[in-house]
């Protein structure tokens, strides 16, 4: 299995797109930290970029990579290698490469400009989002045979998580405005990795004072050891559940 992961990883790391992505993240992070002069402000701007860009790049890149590797996967499938090993290797290779890109692209500027709890949270959120969206991309890819349609589904999924979901939550908030939704909001936030990541980072910043009662509730919950464990669990579930489903589908898939 590790040999296959190594092949996938090498293949991806040689890809110009990953190198470009790393450089892009580096440039954006350095730019934002230098432009805003103040680490906190740079962090807020960087957060906005991370929440949009890392999921988008992860999901699109993984989908394209998977379709481009169809022949490689078919070849390996003909060998005495279990299919679950194959798809796990793809996942680990992709997740590893993108984690590396994010760690360099965001990690280095964060360590240089804002080596504090907020910075580390931001960094971990970026990694978690990358890994989750690789898993989601693989699930989408194994479910659709056609490459164009697969990329379309991936884009739609990104669109849903990054934009539509918040609109839906807003809509629900309006519809059920008469009910106490504080605890429900916690569930809504957990149902979207991007939202969970955003709230985790914002709670680290002093902006959380604005969030009033709900913010206090969230901080009380997510600020404790159990809360952090819960957030970590939910974020890992967002990577594990899609990839486990993908493994299941891929095992029975007619290649």
């Amino acid at each position: 299995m590790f040999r296959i992961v190594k092949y996938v990883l090498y293949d991806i790391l040689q890809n110009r797109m990953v190198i470009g992505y790393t450089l892009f993240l580096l440039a954006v992070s350095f730019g934002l930290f230098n432009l805003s002069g103040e680490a906190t402000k740079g962090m807020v701007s960087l957060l906005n970029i991370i929440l949009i860009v890392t999921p988008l790049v992860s999901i699109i890149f993984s989908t394209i990579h998977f379709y481009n590797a169809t022949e490689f996967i078919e070849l390996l499938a003909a060998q005495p290698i279990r299919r679950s090993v194959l798809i796990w290797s793809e996942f680990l290779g992709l997740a590893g490469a993108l984690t590396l890109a994010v760690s360099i692209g965001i990690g280095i500027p964060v360590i240089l400009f804002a080596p504090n709890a907020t910075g580390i949270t931001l960094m971990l959120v970026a990694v978690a989002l990358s890994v989750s969206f690789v898993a989601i991309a693989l699930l989408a890819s194994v479910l659709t045979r056609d490459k164009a349609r697969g990329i379309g589904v991936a884009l739609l999924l990104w669109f849903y998580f990054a934009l539509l979901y918040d609109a839906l939550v807003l809509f629900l908030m309006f519809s059920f405005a008469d009910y106490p939704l504080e605890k429900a909001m916690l569930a809504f936030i957990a149902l979207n990795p991007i939202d969970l990541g955003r709230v985790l980072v914002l709670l680290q910043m002093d902006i959380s004072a604005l969030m009033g009662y709900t913010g206090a509730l969230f901080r009380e919950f997510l600020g404790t050891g159990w809360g952090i464990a819960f957030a970590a669990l939910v974020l890992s579930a967002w990577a594990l559940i899609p990839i486990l489903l993908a493994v299941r589908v891929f095992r029975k898939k007619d290649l």
Partner: protein
Amino acid sequence: MRYFLLFTHLLFPHWLAATNGWHIGPGQTTSNIHQALEQAQPGDTVWIHEGFYTEGNIAINKPIALIGIGFPVLDGQHNCEIITINASDVLIQGLEIRNSGQLSTIDLAGIKVLSSDRVRIINNRVLDCTFGIYLSNTNDCLISRNEVQGVIKEEQNSGNGIHLWKCARAVVEENHLTGQRDGIYFEFVTDSEIKYNHSEQNLRYGLHFMFSHNDHYHHNRFHHNGAGVAVMYSRQVKMTENEFGFNWGSSAYGLLLKDISDSHIWKNRFERNSAGVYMEGASRITLEQNIFLENGWALRVQASCDANTVRQNNFMGNSFDVSTNGSLVLNTFDSNYWDRYEGYDLNHDGIGDVPFRPVSLYAVVVERMPYGLMLMRSFMVYLLDKAEKIIPSLTPEMLKDDAPVMQPILW
């Protein structure tokens, strides 16, 4: 200032004629304050030399001057009030007063003045006292250049730094107040002036006004207080050139205005407060030429406010510029600088050609559903705000600045 000069002039002949000076301290005629006070005649000066005095409560019942040399320490050992003044025309200067007692039935203070006029309290240090300087039913008093430092306790067990109750024409200037419940507390205080004070890190308010009319406070700094500054149930209060900053917390304000009318807020600086100014039941208030910098909300105007004018202020870097809880708008916004303004100025007269609506859709959502703040900085919220700017539907349409200026206002 006028009154100060007046009563200084009245007092001075006394002083010059004061034949008796009593010296207290090691190596002096006496080392007992009580004894010296008993012998002193009205108009005398009592000098306390450097040293450590634990004489319990010191009551002053005649018009004398009590002056410390080299900050003698008067320690209450946590079981009494330290100086109680029951006479007019008393001067207290240059003392270090420490460790008053604490009772739930009586407000024990470092220096308490009861029903006496023209008392001056100048350049003292009041450390770890429940109440610092406490004036009750006094007129024409001066509290100047004192350092009041409390030890942070829970709110119900601590007192105010400078506490004035039912006073008129008081001057409170250049004091430094920290670690108390309220830095400065005014209740039923009229025609008074608070200036150049520095009130920070108090448990509740930096300055707390209740039922105090015709007062003027200016050039003060209120930083890092639990809930900022509160001005309530008052009218004709002038607040000018103060700094309100870093009052950060889920129910903290730079300036809280509640049931206050006919007041003028001019040239203040509101920086990094959860809410710069929170107005409730405020009428006929002018907010002019203030700076609102990086607050959560710059202005929270409840629908119960009417006939207020917000003019020529700078709004920069606030998360929300203005928020309100109703659609009825009875206040005027005019000629402010808004950093969010995206309009144009075709004739280059410095005034934007399209009105600016400072209440964003998201601010309305959050006002109605506070838990909506969980979507803060979401991309969707940003998009919706943009859409709302073009076609206002939920935001109060009449709440707008018709003549937003293009550049920050400098004066």
